[in-house]
């Protein structure tokens, strides 16, 4: 298999324009004839559904939540980047592009990233028109703040609830289309498989989570907007329901899975407190605008933070990365936190925490300003920990937050299965080996509002007269397979709750495929995951039946897929013998502990193809050609 990224010819700055000038169009009369299935209603899915319906396509949208507004994009706190340069601080499309490529440690595709930067401004325009209440200055202008990996202020925000406001904007656009009858919305519907007809993605099999009914749905093309796989770690900042099932099922039907080992560990989360814990809570990166990160200089210093004098504190990010300071990119900030904790200088229970201190900012700006900027985050922190961050520093520790890997897509966002498009976090394309803050919201909305409406015609224009229906044997066969899988889960009748397997899987992956990875550790993880998977299929307990709301069954299906996916992730991490971005192989580091890339061998996308149960997946490579940027060692010093 050869991966053709279908990158348009011409200079970087002209590619998207020239693509649009030459793209295949579908006339309004023909758009009505094409049906599009959209799976997922986060930023990518809602914006794509709404926009494609506005254009006249017949859209059927599915989500496993009880309402499209609940998708996990809603939890994004900090903001969304756009190269508007409203602050006159030297920003430009080129700078946003370059920061994103560099932030991704030169492992993303140039053309896609440039396009992302190019449409970033349109996203802000679109959202403001929908009534997204971005933060404003007293004069009425939009205001901005800084995020990690940037030296300009280009992040737009709505208090600490930017994801919520952007998602509600997309949800309102989607709702308008549903109200007009142009989108058929299926809530409580989880996609359990993809249906291929003659090798093309033409439909899906879903299970209704309330009734247990399994049904098939046909269309001319399928869009997966199903988010990332952070919950393979069990504990992450993702919502409990976020899962890999849709993309994993697509993988098993022939979609290549790219760079699964690229995961993002977010530096500022509330530390783990115990085994009972069901999720980790993020404290927005925006806090690093005003908070200073430090640990005591002395090992095992058990004094209260306010008792440790200034000269006995190590503001390690400011010390190591003076030009970016506390706003060093996420992978670097996370690894530095791990380093100081490994040295025994961590704070709080178990020594797995560092301080994020606002006292200097409160002194400089006053508590009122800090409350206005981060009030809801401070409140959240107090609620969970019982401590006030106005009075003492927050304790934070890194946690899994986002996954840069995902299904491989070309410039048109189409996977290796013709007709299967993948948008947002579910694809691999824009963030390389590390995502910069406030770029996930940008990518989700770029893909849904501005990219897919322009690129979908490339595929659909080849599909005239190729209608399929759910009566076809391909649909019946896939449906039967899905039913068999559900029955198989229910037939195990073991005694161990699903959560227990998920927690154990999370521990394996976090320990061996988390912030630091080694050959020996990854090999051990692979065999441990296999053993756990075997146990799962013998011992998992799923009370109840398949024809009702059965939350154990829902979770069991997702965990079964994570137990397969976790292995691929470790295989990818083992094969990528270099360090880059969030992927840190201990064998590959510089003398001062920074990530050491090997561009001669690994400036490539690693895409994995399913080769049947029990067989090793096949590795296919896409060479990353850098025409406009010069591959450099990332330095934030």
């Amino acid at each position: 298999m050869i991966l053709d990224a279908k990158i348009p010819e011409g200079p970087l700055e002209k590619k998207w324009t020239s693509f649009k000038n030459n793209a295949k169009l579908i006339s309004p009369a023909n758009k009505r004839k094409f049906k599009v299935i959209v799976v997922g209603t986060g930023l990518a899915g809602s914006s794509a559904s709404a926009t494609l319906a506005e254009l006249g396509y017949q859209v059927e949208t599915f989500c496993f939540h009880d309402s499209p507004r609940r998708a996990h994009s809603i939890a994004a706190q900090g903001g969304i980047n756009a190269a508007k340069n409203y602050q006159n601080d030297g920003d430009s499309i080129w700078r946003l592009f370059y920061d994103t490529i560099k932030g991704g440690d030169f492992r993303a595709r140039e053309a896609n990233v440039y396009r992302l930067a190019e449409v970033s401004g349109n996203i802000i325009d679109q959202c403001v028109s929908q009534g997204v209440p971005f933060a404003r200055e007293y004069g009425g202008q939009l205001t901005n703040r800084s995020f990690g990996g940037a030296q300009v202020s280009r992040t737009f925000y709505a208090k600490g609830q930017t994801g919520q406001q952007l998602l509600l904007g997309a949800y309102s656009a989607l709702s308008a289309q549903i109200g007009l009858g142009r989108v058929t919305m299926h809530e409580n519907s989880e996609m359990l498989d993809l249906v291929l007809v003659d090798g093309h993605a033409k439909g899906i099999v879903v299970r209704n989570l309330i009734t247990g009914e399994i049904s098939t749905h046909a269309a001319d093309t399928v869009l997966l907007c199903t988010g990332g796989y952070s919950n393979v770690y069990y504990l992450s900042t993702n919502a409990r329901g976020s899962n890999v099932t849709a993309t994993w099922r697509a993988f098993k039907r022939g979609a290549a899975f790219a760079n699964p080992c690229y995961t993002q560990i977010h530096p500022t989360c509330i530390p783990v407190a115990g085994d009972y814990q069901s999720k980790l809570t993020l404290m927005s990166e925006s806090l690093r605008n005003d908070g200073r990160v430090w640990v005591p200089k002395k090992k095992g210093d058990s004094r209260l933070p306010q008792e440790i004098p200034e000269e006995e504190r190590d503001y390690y990010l400011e010390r190591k990365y003076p030009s970016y300071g506390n706003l060093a990119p996420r992978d670097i900030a996370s690894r530095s936190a791990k380093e100081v904790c490994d040295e025994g200088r961590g704070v709080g229970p178990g020594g797995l925490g560092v301080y994020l201190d606002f006292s200097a900012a409160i002194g400089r700006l006053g508590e009122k300003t800090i409350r206005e900027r981060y009030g809801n985050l401070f409140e959240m922190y107090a609620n969970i920990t019982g401590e006030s961050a106005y009075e003492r520093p927050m304790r934070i520790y890194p946690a899994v937050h986002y996954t840069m890997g995902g299904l491989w897509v070309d410039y048109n966002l189409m996977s290796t299965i013709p007709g299967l498009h993948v948008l947002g976090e579910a694809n691999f394309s824009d963030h390389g080996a590390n995502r910069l803050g406030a770029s996930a919201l940008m990518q989700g909305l770029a893909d849904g509002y501005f990219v897919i409406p322009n690129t979908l015609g490339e595929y659909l224009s080849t599909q005239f007269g190729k209608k399929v229906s759910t009566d076809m044997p391909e649909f019946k066969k896939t449906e039967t397979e899905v039913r068999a899988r559900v029955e198989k889960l229910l037939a195990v009748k073991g005694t161990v709750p699903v959560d227990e397997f998920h927690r154990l899987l999370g521990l394996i992956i976090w320990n061996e495929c988390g912030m630091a990875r080694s050959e020996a550790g990854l090999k051990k993880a692979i065999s441990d995951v296999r053993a756990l998977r075997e146990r799962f299929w013998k011992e998992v307990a799923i009370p109840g039946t398949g024809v009702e709301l059965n939350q154990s069954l829902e979770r069991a299906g997702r965990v079964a897929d994570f137990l397969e996916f976790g292995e691929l992730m470790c295989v990818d991490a083992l094969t990528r013998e270099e360090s880059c971005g969030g992927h840190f192989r201990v064998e590959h580091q510089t003398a001062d502990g920074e990530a050491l890339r090997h561009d001669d061998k690994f400036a490539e996308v690693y895409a994995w193809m399913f080769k049947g149960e029990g067989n090793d997946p096949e590795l296919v490579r896409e060479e990353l050609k850098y025409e406009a940027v010069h591959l450099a060692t990332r330095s934030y010093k």
Partner: protein
Amino acid sequence: MSTMHFHLRLWKQKSATDQGEFIEIDAKEIPSECSFLEMLDIVNNRLTREGKEPVSFASDCREGICGTCHMVINGVPQGPGRGAACQVYMRKFSNGQTITVEPYRVGAFPIVKDLVVNRSAYDRIIRSGGFISEHTGGAPDASATLIPKPVADAAMDAAACIGCGACAAACPNSSAMLFVGAKVTHLGLLPQGQAERKKRARSMVRTMQEEGFGNCSNYYACEAVCPAGVKADVISMLNREYIRGELSEAVGAID
């Protein structure tokens, strides 16, 4: 880490048509630092190990923003303190306390199973007008319209609604006016929302009534339980907007 004990009364109901009843469970050795939903996870996993069916309850983000979780804890929709049920921590209860957990009791939110209810009525209200009709692609530059900070802030405060339904569950009339008022206020305050302002209020209120929600009688229980801190002022705004919308239609004005 210290542990606590609780006596739980949990609502079990197989389906919408089933009778339903409380079951009593002693929840022993619960870590005092865990959240309310984590306590329910522990109880459910214990039930599962004993071969019994766990109690169904909805949750997702577990940080108070997605609005998925919904239940009534000791008579309070979304439980004690500010925030959603997922933000309630066990340290807020005393050791040995009896805790009653039941579903929302709102006619327009039929029970699905145990603590889970169907809140799709809220989505249908939004679909009837809770948006600005703005097609992708035609938007002017974001800086073209200046919006004074106090206006943007007030719109944001109303827009913070998480759509969890606690307002209707707390209201003796099962009114959804805090929810509807929040959306009408958010969009009605902004310059972008003016074109559809009257139609929006009219059509959302009509849908709300069709769905079977009651009217506001100034009880303010909604404001007291709202996890997002939406203020009852939005109901006054809703009333004004609605009257304006209805009058406009009654006199045949062009709006």
